[in-house]
């Protein structure tokens, strides 16, 4: 009987102040929170990239892939020279810009497929198996934009050089897992970034 009396005397906790606090905190957090996900694209300076290559064995081949972004389009070259010599001799870029609706459009998809078919796919197997003909700078690309090129174009060009096109899934053997995702990760406590996934030319150096 005493127990029942005690229970009757107890009052419910007043939750209203906590409710008020929560109702204030939630709109505040909703307003200040960022729902877009910010990521990064990792790039080197050309000088740092060259120093690293010199440290590696000298008897290996060098690809020396360079993409020049100009107002006319993309000029692609390797150590051997232009990848599209005929077009270059005519003063045309390998992949020209397209003018649509008064705007200039850079053909990122076309560049991605171009790099894949002309440079990545023919050399993929030998570089994967570390056979003769392996490039010391496999996976590296130097991107040289002209001064007036917009930053957005540079970022999209980096994407086109880094990611493999969809057809690579069916054409390349020994791809890691099933997806064509390429990313950099920095394990905790480590100084250097690690490359994960399937990439084309992810190690980019920007500038001259």
């Amino acid at each position, binding site marked *: 009987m005493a127990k029942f009396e005690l229970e009757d005397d107890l009052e*419910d906790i007043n*939750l*209203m102040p*906590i*409710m008020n606090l*929560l*109702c204030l*905190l*939630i709109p505040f*957090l*909703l307003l*200040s*929170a*960022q*729902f*877009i*996900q*910010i*990521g*990064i*694209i*990792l*790039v*080197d*300076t050309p*000088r*740092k990239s060259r120093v690293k290559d010199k440290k590696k064995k000298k008897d290996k081949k060098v690809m020396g892939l360079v993409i020049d*972004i100009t107002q006319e389009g993309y000029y692609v070259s390797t150590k051997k020279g232009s990848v599209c010599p005929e077009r270059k001799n005519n003063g045309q870029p390998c992949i020209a810009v397209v003018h649509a609706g008064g705007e200039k459009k850079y053909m990122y998809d076309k560049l991605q497929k171009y790099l894949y078919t002309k440079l990545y796919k023919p050399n993929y197997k030998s570089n994967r198996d570390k056979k003769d003909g392996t490039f010391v700078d496999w996976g590296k690309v130097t991107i040289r*934009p*002209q*001064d*007036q*090129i*917009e*930053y*957005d174009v*540079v*970022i*999209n060009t*980096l*994407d086109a050089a*880094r*990611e493999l096109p969809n057809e690579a899934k069916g054409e390349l053997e020994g791809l890691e897992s099933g997806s064509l*995702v*390429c*990313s*950099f*990760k*920095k394990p905790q406590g480590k100084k250097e970034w690690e490359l994960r*996934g399937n990439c084309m030319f992810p190690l980019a150096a*920007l*500038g001259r």
Partner: protein
Amino acid sequence: MYNNDLRTAEEEAMAKKLAEKKAARRNKKDEDNPLAITSLMDALTIILIFLLKSYGSDPMSVPQKKNELMIPKSTSMSNMVECVDIQISRTSIVVKGKKVVTINNLGISSQDAPNGYIIKNLKDRLDDLRNKEIEAKQISAKKFQGEAFIAADTKIPWKLVDQVLKTAVRARYLRFSFAIVKTRGG
């Protein structure tokens, strides 16, 4: 006739009693349970925890502003790590929250970059931050190789970004991560 009257009176009395009982029951319920807010509290607490978690997951934030600083979209899936952050908007360059240079017509004035490329105030600020980092990590100045996080507006011409990169390299920040808005989840 009399019987019918009696029945109606009885029925009325019954109905009255029932109504009274109903009212009593209703009143009793109101007194016993003032408002069931426990489940609402649970839901709000979950939302609060979710918001707090998503608020503090990124080491750095990029405050985006229309026509000032809109960072480009990319398919990159790499996540940022904490390092020196440089924001290049259409009006200024900000390093770790401190404005160092004003931008006019998407370019740097010759006063701010006397030799054409190296931006003086930016170099001074990065030198300060480098020295602080060297002191904190207790490493030799020669071994220092810094990393910088660059958040630039989509419409900024490459020359301006290049000037910032070259200045940062002079201050021994040799690796850069460009901020992007992820178009793929992960």
